């Protein structure tokens, strides 16, 4: 086995796709499965360059459905495995993702959102929030991280593998085309040196010993005969998910304590929101920012506290209300009005947020 890919801490200046490939290496990932689609291609590209040097593997499949299922298969064999996709590929991959929910398969999926619907653009959007959180014919028993910088991409890609294997739910890193393609600085490190132990993996199929004699038989099913039987299983899934949720939820707050207006934004848009808060505070306006890092499960308790004194929420996203829907469902009953600032498939700058808030008066 080759040396550790990252020793100590080192500053890099690379694209987000390269960050993800390095993070997966640092997280001791055994194999990536994938099918090319922009803007995630370079994750595969860098992985295939780096992986052989460190004894890791790669399999290119014939499409995204297959990439998703082979990832699940890899996980069944006890491998720390992931795949990456975007846009129409994310749509196709919903079936294996759904199976991962049903069978509690700790697979990791990296999504680099592009414009939608359909082929649309290969550039950028936040239009895959609903699909990533709730796609498939299930209940959205998925863990979804929304990174906002290269540092987040590194930290949360590593974390995604631990979350997946600890809680046994499919885990997603929901990036976007901007983060995938841009270059900025990032500190990479060996997780172990920071006291982060990788959750051990184990075989799910083909465990050691004779089933029924040496160990309990592994009973892996995603097909059920009766409504009652399925209902019991889904209830167990849902209970397990919500029991784990308080340990999983993450968020960040910026000047919310005394804010009249709280900007809610996630992913790369948090950068514009943070800069807007700074600018508006300099202008003497009481503005704060709440950023959910986990979109699923949603950090609702923290958000309720953050908006307790607010007179208004400004919901800012590069989609036509996908985060907005999440927030409204969670905040049902709250009297704080929500004003939308939706730019589907387009980037958002701090200047635009500042101007919008100032114009509102």
């Amino acid at each position, binding site marked *: 086995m080759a040396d550790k890919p990252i020793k100590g801490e080192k500053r890099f200046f690379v694209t987000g796709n390269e960050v993800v490939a390095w993070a997966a290496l640092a997280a001791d990932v055994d194999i990536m499965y994938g099918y090319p689609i922009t803007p995630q291609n370079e994750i595969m590209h860098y992985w295939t360059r780096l992986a052989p040097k460190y004894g890791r593997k790669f399999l290119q499949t014939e499409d995204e459905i297959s990439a998703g299922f082979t990832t699940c298969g890899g996980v069944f064999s006890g491998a720390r495995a992931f795949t990456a996709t975007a846009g129409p590929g994310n749509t196709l991959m919903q079936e294996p993702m759904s199976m991962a929910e049903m069978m509690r398969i700790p697979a990791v999926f990296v999504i680099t959102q592009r414009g939608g619907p359909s082929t649309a653009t290969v550039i950028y959007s936040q239009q895959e929030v609903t699909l990533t959180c709730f796609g498939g014919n299930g209940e959205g028993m998925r863990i979804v991280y929304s990174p906002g910088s290269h540092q987040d991409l590194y930290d949360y890609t590593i974390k995604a593998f631990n979350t997946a294997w600890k809680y046994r739910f499919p885990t997603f890193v929901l990036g976007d085309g901007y983060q995938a*393609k841009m270059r*900025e600085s990032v500190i990479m490190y060996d997780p172990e040196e920071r006291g982060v132990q990788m959750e051990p993996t184990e075989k799910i199929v083909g465990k050691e010993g004779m089933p029924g004699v040496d160990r309990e038989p592994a009973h892996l099913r995603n097909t059920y005969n009766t409504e009652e039987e399925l209902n019991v299983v889904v209830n167990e899934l849902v209970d397990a998910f919500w029991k784990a949720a308080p340990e999983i939820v993450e968020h960040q707050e910026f000047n919310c304590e005394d804010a009249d207006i709280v900007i809610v934004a996630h992913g790369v848009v948090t950068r514009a929101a943070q800069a807007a808060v700074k600018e508006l505070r300099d202008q003497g306006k009481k503005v704060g920012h709440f950023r959910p890092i986990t979109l699923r499960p949603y950090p609702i308790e923290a958000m309720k506290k953050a908006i307790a004194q607010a007179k208004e929420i400004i919901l800012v996203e590069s989609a036509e209300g996908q985060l907005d829907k999440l927030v409204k469902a969670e905040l049902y009953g709250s009297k704080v009005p929500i004003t939308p600032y939706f730019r589907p498939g387009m980037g958002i700058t*701090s200047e635009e947020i500042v101007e919008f808030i100032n114009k509102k008066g």
Partner: protein
Amino acid sequence: MAKEYKIALAGEGGQGVQSVAGIIVEAANDNGREALYIPNFGVEQRGGVSIAFVQIADEKIGSPKFKKADIVIALSDRSVRRTAQYVDERTTFVYDSAIEGVEEDLPKNAAKVYAIPAIDVAKNELHPRVFNIIIMGAVIEATKVITLESAKQAIEKKLGYKFEQDPKLRELNFQALEKGAELVRQFNK
């Protein structure tokens, strides 16, 4: 130098705007500054205007793209038209004087408009291959986001392996860098 700089570099595919942007941000990062660079990218394999969005600052940078640039460099007629949207009254707009038929399209709201003969200089004085390095020199002189010295180090890092084989190339590239800076310096006098 404390100022945050937003730079939009636009040209035709093959003019090297993306590689220039790449070298500048590498150099800035090597000097311990924060830099962010994102190319425009689409479904086309060729054709279309290539734009590099570059930001350099002392603190972490916000949105990857921006609405208005401090400096816009446009290297073709289509690029001149395409980049007008990034210009406001604080923008320095630089374009190549060899571009024809854009007189009417030059931004009227820019703080300064410079026409530099980079294409001519590359063709007649140096070598067409170093056109993008001339542009790099011009960008650095106009913004001072990095020193010419650190630009040279960055070029060395990127092209050093070629220079080993042919040391004349190093000289040619460094000349091109100085020349590009000189073309802008005339305006800044």
